[in-house]
């Protein structure tokens, strides 16, 4: 159900804005109009398609998994190029054993548009990830656990204006969740790391 919902959100975000954006920005196609002012709110909601990789020092094989995720930002613009705020990303998946995997990123987030006249942006964030199970394969030991992790994200994308307060983004991100060492029943699994690559679309409210 979540996957289907995510797909619909991504599809809407990706395809709906394009004709509207072309009409809404006559001076420079793709430009963010009107110019953003400091103090504006910055709200982003959308869906992304996520590929995740579980890794650790002694992992026997590294599995890539694919799933839908929800991505959201809330904050404000500190100047016409820069937004700061919080980011929440929720990733739901399943392990081979049918155990549920849940990953929630909660981070401080920073988005920057180098050019005022087009929608290209760079994004970065750091904070915490709350992990319920993760993809691990250490000597066939798949531990079930809950853990907090150190989280980091970088990303890039393009934003189109859909009017004074609305916009849409296509976005590609790389999130990392560093879980550190995990104690299983048999041993300590060292340096467990989650890497997640995502592409998708979001709606922006300013």
């Amino acid at each position, binding site marked *: 159900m979540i996957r289907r919902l995510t797909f619909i959100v991504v599809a809407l975000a990706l395809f709906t804005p394009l004709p509207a954006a072309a009409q809404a920005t006559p001076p420079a196609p793709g430009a963010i109009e009107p110019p953003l*002012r400091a103090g504006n709110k910055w709200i982003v909601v959308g869906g992304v398609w996520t590929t995740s990789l579980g890794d650790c020092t002694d992992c026997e094989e590294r599995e890539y998994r694919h799933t839908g995720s929800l991505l959201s930002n809330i904050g404000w613009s500190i100047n016409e190029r820069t937004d700061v705020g919080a980011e929440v990303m929720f990733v739901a998946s399943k392990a081979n054993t049918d155990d549920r995997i849940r990953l929630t990123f909660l981070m401080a987030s920073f988005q920057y548009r180098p050019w005022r006249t087009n929608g290209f942006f760079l994004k970065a964030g*750091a904070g915490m990830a709350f992990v319920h199970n993760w993809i691990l394969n250490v000597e066939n030991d798949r531990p079930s656990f809950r853990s907090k992790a*150190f989280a980091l994200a970088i990303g890039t994308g393009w934003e189109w204006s859909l009017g004074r307060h609305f916009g849409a983004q296509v976005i590609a991100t790389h999130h990392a969740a*560093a879980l*550190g060492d995990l104690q299983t029943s048999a041993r300590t699994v060292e340096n467990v790391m989650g890497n997640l690559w995502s592409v998708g679309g979001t709606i922006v409210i300013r």
Partner: protein
Amino acid sequence: MEPLLSSTLLLSALLGGFPSAPPQTPVTPARCVGLLCLSARPAEPREAPILSIRQAPGQVAAPLVDGRACPGCPKRRLGHAFIQATIINGFYELANLIRGQDTAKITPSTWWLNMKRGWEWDLDDFVVNQIGHPYQGNNYYTAGRANGLNFWESSALTAFGSGTWEFFGETNQASLNDLINTTLGGIALGEMFYRTSWLIRNTQKTGKARLWSEIGATVADPIGGINRFISGDSARVVEKPRDVVPSALGSTIVAGALWRGSNHETINSAGFGFLETEVLYGDPTTGRSRTPYDAFGLRLDIGGGSALSEARVRGRLIGQPYKGGAVQLNVAQAYQFNSNTAYRFGAQAFEVNLSFVKNFSSTVSMWTAGWGGVTVLGAVDSLPPGATPGEPPPEEPTDPDAGQGVSTGPRFYDYGPGTNFGGLFFLRHGARPFLLFSYEAHHLYIVDGIRANHLLQRMRLDLRAPLKGRVGIGGAAEFFDRRTYYQTEGVAAGKFRFPQVRLYLTWSAS
């Protein structure tokens, strides 16, 4: 070694003395602080908000004239900035290749492999990760500043340079800790070096005096200096950009000896020499500020048992006075490096500090401040259960198959996020403090390394007295406290205390 060399040269440049600029228009008089002189600054009400050169009230961008935000500003060239960040990566890559590092043998397939594998924690030396990477980040940052980008834009450029280096500059898997240290450390060091270079540079001189001031500034900020020599800005006679002229400047050089103790002995008779530099740029105790680093503090401690025992930059990002200016609230960014018997510690942090100044008379005043914040990523030397801080790490066999420059570990320090808090209390006579008390605490929650919560505390009390002119004498009592609470059940916490005393001479520039 580059950061140490650069710091040493910077110190030499600072001690060398710089000429002051003659006033041109209605200005506040040029102020000399010891051998350092601030160039004249257009007169403005003391209470006027200090804004970015491109941000008038309401954040409306000022028009650029000849591509410059002000006559003394560099031309705004966004594309050049990104290209130069890439050239800097090429320079470091080439340097590694010439040194024969296997990690420099990059190909498109290593790029693809790095992108497929994502982030990891690396195993490099403490100094490489906590000083070397921030210094490299400072190069990306100053490339942005040299091409007319503001603080926030240059910060994004630093992240870009760091990210591309991690994925494409080495064969190593991209390192999470490097990205953070290079980006955040690079921003802190970069803005500090950028502003320091503008203290050294005298844009109203000509001839040899000008050339030497530009060369001196290039030592502090090589990327900015090279850009100015290439563009010809190094010879233009103009006023300095307003936002790089500090509202105040104070510095003290402290030289002397220190003696340490440990859990077992009060004070060891064998001492170490040290040279400490304290710089206070701008006035962090007052003013509504939206110009990052218009006020910052720098402390550099050479010797004292390590080649570099402390490096700290704390820069104001936002400042807001309350209660008619009686209380000052600042949001600051901090870069920190410590190496002493008690701990080796490095951190990238943000903090909120609250301070107030009380004048007891026309000459005697008190400055009190307290702060607390978040440590985005901190590093502390590993302390296995039962071990004592300062013990040399055990000999580990090296991997004979590992290529040159490939770190195979083990790594003897741990990484994690955390919090920080502290306070200070200064009594000052004029601009010179004669009683200084400071306390700082850092908590780290280790996620990579020996799972533990570390609490590192430090207290220091200094008493100083003038001897003659700018020269004074002083002494300090310090106390380090290190506590390690292991996350493994049943393992006793490690608690260590290290007293330290200092005797020294001071030279104050104010």
